């Protein structure tokens, strides 16, 4: 018996899972369980399961009624016949759509810093904007040059990656700096060739000195060595074309923000392996002096995608902005992506544009941006399609912990409350439930008959009548 347990403990990952699950269910196996824990130190942390949702993994797959199982904040299994340990926290996702948490580029004021210094020292894990962002499904942002995970109530592990992008200036209107940039790349490339030669020769001749790195721009060198990505901000066709050619010449992948006229040179950008960060709703008139195509196009993202450019989608406002024209700030990232779909971008590409592509740009795609085994359990649950403007984020999970629950959040609980969370004793609620059974096949699919009815936000009763009315109408 004992030796059998040892075999289990030493078996590969999947078998290890099974063992751990059994261990959770049977207390007597505790002694051997400890031994297994010592062998595999990663088998720690709480189990968390999102059960029965339509899982959009972000890699193209959709698993209907599947389960995502995580331990210690890392996804362990995604599938239909997942054995869930007894002590796992369960989140019933029946009728809900599960997506990877969204990644928002270049935001401001979401991850608040309270004092001077690093995010690790002064991140506000309780700020209002943080809650608003989580309510919008955003779980990772980049502020300044830092990729941050939006943890709620925790300050450890907030900073995911720093200074992954190095910003370069390139403009055809400043030919001198343009030429200098080209020279810098050439110098850095030449140096790297010398360096690699030296590395080879060193094996035979140990006396040989390392080639001097004088005059080599360290940030350019890092770009050529793929340690960072080069970020440009360019709008016009000529600039975009110049960047594309520079990148092809020196063999690096540029990240181009703005990229309004990119659709006119999409094939060149595609050949350069560029990333484009676009705002699908941004508008720019064509220059009347030019005959060739120009200006903004709603098809921009779609054309770029077709040409092999990786498209990340950014909202037109970089902060949470509750004034002015509604729906343009970072809380409406999926709507912005929806506009790209309107211009012909496939829905899968639009989803990637707000998840995995920005994650790649930030250098954190090994952890976030899609739902895959081994990645962080950052996911959102919606009552409909992510890109549909009526869908609401019902739950947000970061690192395998529930950090946002719409029906319990002061600002959101009253908005289209889910009928099942109505108090059981209220007559109004009972009538709603009756209706809801009839409408169960409704396309909105927001209903979830057997939710935990024991907890509900305080102000729920006030909101009930309006909900009932809208259901009838």
């Amino acid at each position, binding site marked *: 018996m004992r030796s059998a347990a040892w075999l289990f403990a030493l078996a590969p990952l999947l078998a290890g899972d099974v063992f751990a699950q059994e261990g959770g269910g049977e207390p007597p196996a505790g002694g051997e369980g400890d031994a297994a824990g010592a062998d595999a130190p990663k088998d720690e942390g709480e189990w968390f399961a999102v059960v029965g949702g339509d899982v959009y993994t972000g890699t193209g797959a959709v698993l209907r009624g599947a389960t995502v199982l995580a331990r210690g904040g890392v996804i362990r299994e995604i599938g239909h016949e997942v054995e869930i340990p007894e002590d796992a926290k369960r989140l019933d996702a029946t009728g809900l759509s599960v997506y990877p948490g969204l990644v928002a580029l270049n935001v401001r004021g979401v991850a608040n810093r*309270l*004092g*001077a*210094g*690093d995010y690790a*020292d*002064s*991140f*506000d*894990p*309780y*700020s*209002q904007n943080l809650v608003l962002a989580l309510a919008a499904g955003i779980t990772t942002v980049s502020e300044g040059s830092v990729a941050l995970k939006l943890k709620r*109530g*925790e*300050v*450890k592990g907030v900073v995911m990656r720093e200074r992954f992008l190095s910003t370069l200036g390139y403009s055809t209107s400043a030919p001198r700096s343009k030429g200098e940039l080209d020279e810098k790349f050439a110098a850095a490339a030449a140096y790297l060739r010398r360096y690699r030669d030296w590395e080879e020769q060193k094996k035979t001749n140990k006396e040989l000195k390392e080639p001097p790195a004088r005059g080599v721009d360290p940030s350019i060198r890092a770009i050529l060595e793929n340690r960072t990505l080069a970020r440009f901000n360019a709008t016009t066709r000529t600039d975009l074309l110049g960047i594309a050619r520079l990148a092809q010449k020196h063999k690096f992948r540029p990240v181009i923000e703005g990229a309004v006229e990119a659709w006119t040179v999409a094939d060149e950008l595609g050949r350069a392996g560029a990333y484009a960060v676009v705002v699908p709703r941004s508008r720019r008139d064509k220059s009347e002096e030019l005959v060739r195509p120009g200006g903004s196009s709603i098809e921009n993202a779609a054309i770029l995608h077709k040409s092999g450019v990786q498209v990340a989608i950014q909202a037109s406002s970089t902060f949470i902005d509750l004034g002015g024209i509604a729906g343009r700030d970072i809380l409406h990232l999926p709507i912005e992506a929806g506009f790209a779909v309107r211009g012909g971008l496939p829905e899968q590409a639009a989803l990637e544009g707000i998840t995995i592509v920005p994650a790649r740009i930030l250098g954190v795609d090994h952890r976030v941006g899609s739902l895959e085994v081994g990645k962080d359990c950052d996911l959102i649950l919606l009552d409909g399609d992510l890109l549909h403007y009526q869908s609401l984020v019902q739950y947000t999970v970061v690192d395998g912990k529930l950090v946002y629950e719409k029906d319990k959040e*002061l600002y959101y609980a009253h908005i289209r409350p889910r009928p099942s969370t109505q108090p059981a004793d209220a007559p109004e609620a009972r009538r709603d439930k009756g209706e809801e059974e009839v409408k169960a096949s409704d396309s909105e699919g927001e209903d979830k008959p057997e939710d935990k009815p024991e907890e509900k936000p305080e102000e729920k009763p006030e909101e009930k009548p309006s909900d009932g009315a809208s259901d009838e109408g």
Partner: protein
Amino acid sequence: MLLRTFLSSLLPVALAASALAAPADLLAIRVGRAETVSHGAIEHAVLLIEDGRIVTIGADLPVERGIPVLERPEWTVMPGLVLPYSRLGLDGRAGAEFTPEVSPAAEVLPRISDYRDALELGITTIGLYPPGNGVPGQAIAIRPKGDTLEEMLIKEGAYLKVYFRADARSKKMVKDAWAKVDEYDDKVKKAKEKWTKDQEKSKSAKKPAEGEKKDEEKPADKPAEKSGDAGKGAAKGFVPPPPDDKVRPFLRVRDGKLLPLVSISQAADWAHWLDAIGERKFDFALRVVMQRELDLYYVLEEVAKRKCTLVMEPEITYQIATMRQRNLPAEFAAAGSRIVLIPRGEDLDSHAAWRVDVGDLVKNGLERKTALDALTLAGASVMGLEKDYGSLEKGKVANLLFLDGDPFEPATKVMAVMLDGEFVHGEVRQ
């Protein structure tokens, strides 16, 4: 003395604040109600006071003949108010960044009228803290009466004031302070190893006598124990090197002899404080600076889990960005934390409104029992004075506040105040 007892039983003697019975005298006080704080309320209570302490307290106790009795059936008695966090009567000297060894004792001006005013409102114990950011120093506990500091002083090192905010500087300060403690521990460990070796070399048993007392301060953590195992029998005479002035307070914190009172002003401060102290286990209390909007409702459970006492003003605050009122003291208490409520300000009006402000919280859901504790015993406990102060119990110092009604009613007046067994305020005729 006999004569005096005889006289006082025959004719009513006016005891003004200046002309008091000698503290050695026995005095029985019969009141309508006593809020003991520690054991609930006692109706028709009798207290026996001797030598400045409460000898007995109970309901309808028989009083021996010859003991003078103060009959005040219309009065309510409660322990004198304990205000553990104050700058009353001190000048506004700003403290330095990191001076954990400093005490505000030098700032105290004994005869200042503020202390008399406080005393007349029933405030019988005050904790004075040193000002400044960072770790400005240690608080002292005083009684608000006396001609010299020695007469006033109850305790030095009542708690260690720590000002903490979610920023790099505060976190570095905390981490550095503990790093210094580790450094000192290493030093002690090495000194001890050396001492053990020397001891083994020269088997002549020459034991310095004065080592015994300092041994207490010797850290009792793992590295020290390990080295202790090597030469346990001989370890008695070891004198650890004296710690630095800035390290000593933190050694006392670690050993549970000094309580840090950590000032925070938002939930994020709490999260970063926990991050800064890491795995270290020591007790601490929290000073919460009340603002109009406060997001501490996010950390109710966590704070309760750590068993922190909170020092806060009796104020209703608002949920962030809303007009939702929150009774945070009541919420913290309900979550399981102990709370100390202090006046909203340092001025006379704030002190006068103190009880009533707390009464407002009681009307808004704070438990009455908790509120009484928050005015007295909890505050004494923060200063490490709960054995002698803060409640009406046998053996405790007779600091009493006599009222003509419920402590939380605005119309209730202070009838008399007793400090260390002497009436210091009020017209008291037996």
